């Protein structure tokens, strides 16, 4: 039970920090809307709705990347991570709490972004929303893990997209498949499989990222 309490406390800290400083969420919102406008001009007139559906996934991925790049900034600046590692709690709680915080931010952005997409481009069906929800889990689990590693490297901001994008390609395949194919059930199953596999790996190996 203390594990969930630790996770809750750590995630609450991130939400509280964001509520006070407000430096990630507005940036992500602005970015995703700006991306949609860019996409409008990137798609020649007469492009099918399928093309814009594909671009929705590009927007989600890069918006998430923007948030993930900021995820470990507070920890890094004040040496908080050392304190957290010294605290008598399971180290994977640090990863889980941060993933939940990033997931919260991403979900909040999507609450605005998906209706905006529906207004700007084409309607969104239930399968797409389900796929976005499943993809968010995978993006936040893997992304947070890699952000923790990238934060310790020399080329921090540069490193995260390079580490993350190859791992995110299956998410894009699953997501785009679910939103463009008539019967997207197996793509949703694939996204769920991805989430499960990588969440387990991240959860089991996060200890090695923060300790020596």
């Amino acid at each position, binding site marked *: 039970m203390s594990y969930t309490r630790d996770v809750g406390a750590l995630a609450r800290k991130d939400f509280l920090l964001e509520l006070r400083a407000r430096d990630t969420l507005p940036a992500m919102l602005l970015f995703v809307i700006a991306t949609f406008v860019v996409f409008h001009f990137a798609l020649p007139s007469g492009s099918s709705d399928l093309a814009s559906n594909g671009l929705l996934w590009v927007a989600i991925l890069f918006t998430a990347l923007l948030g993930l790049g900021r995820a470990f900034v507070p920890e890094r600046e004040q040496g908080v991570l050392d304190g957290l590692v010294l605290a008598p709690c399971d180290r994977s709680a640090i990863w889980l709490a941060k993933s939940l915080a990033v997931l919260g931010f991403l979900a909040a952005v999507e609450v605005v972004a998906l209706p905006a997409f529906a207004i700007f481009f084409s309607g969104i069906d239930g399968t797409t929303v389900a796929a976005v929800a499943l993809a968010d889990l995978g993006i936040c689990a893997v992304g947070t893990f890699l952000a923790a590693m990238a934060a310790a490297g020399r080329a921090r901001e540069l490193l995260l997209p390079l580490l993350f994008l190859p791992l995110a390609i299956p998410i894009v395949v699953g997501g*785009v498949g679910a939103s463009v194919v008539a019967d997207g059930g197996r793509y949703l199953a694939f996204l769920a499989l991805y989430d499960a596999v*990588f969440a387990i790996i991240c959860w089991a190996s996060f200890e090695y990222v923060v300790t020596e």
Partner: protein
Amino acid sequence: MSSPNSRLPAVATLALGLVAAATALVFFFAPLDADQGLSQKIFYFHVPIALTAYGCFGWGAWRALVHLWKREPGADLESYVAIHQGVIFGALTLLTGSIWARASWGVWWTWSSNQLVLFLVLFLFYCAYFMLRFSVDAGPQRANFSAVYALFGVALIPVSFLAIRLASDFIHPTVFTSAGPQMSGKMFFTFCVCLAAMLSLAATFYAVELSGKRLDVRLRELREALA
């Protein structure tokens, strides 16, 4: 564990003999393919190189696991060298695959070839491995990061494979199916020799690079001891 230097001459000789035998078999023993003719011969290099790359990635991930699990000294270096060899063989797979695609489909690159796309994804992933490794200072943290990322790789291979299968239509020739290899006996024998040749070649490169890297580490330790 015996020193890789003592095994090196034997492995290198074996690799040399097998590569020569494989080349001879490909051109003089294996029958011409009925559909594709001479261009099918690149199959005997392309597929063994691809399998060798998988082998290297797998071995790298295994050494990474050993590093995290048993804290065996040197496992980190072995994992790194194996993945380095895997990336070299992966690049060769992309190259030979591209040539084969040009010869049999008339294009240098096709997104409908699942194996080529998978290798491109893996190539990008493992290039990022090197970026990660070189952006962290040498030490236990770098070893841990590299090992964990290498483990992500072995999970990514089947997941990406599934993703690419789901995503694309299927025009890549399937030689191995659940019904066994769709080749004549002579072709299969040639293929096996080629595979053995590539694996022994990779083992040779691995041993050479590993002994070089170990020497570097030893030299640095001695310098630090003297300083």
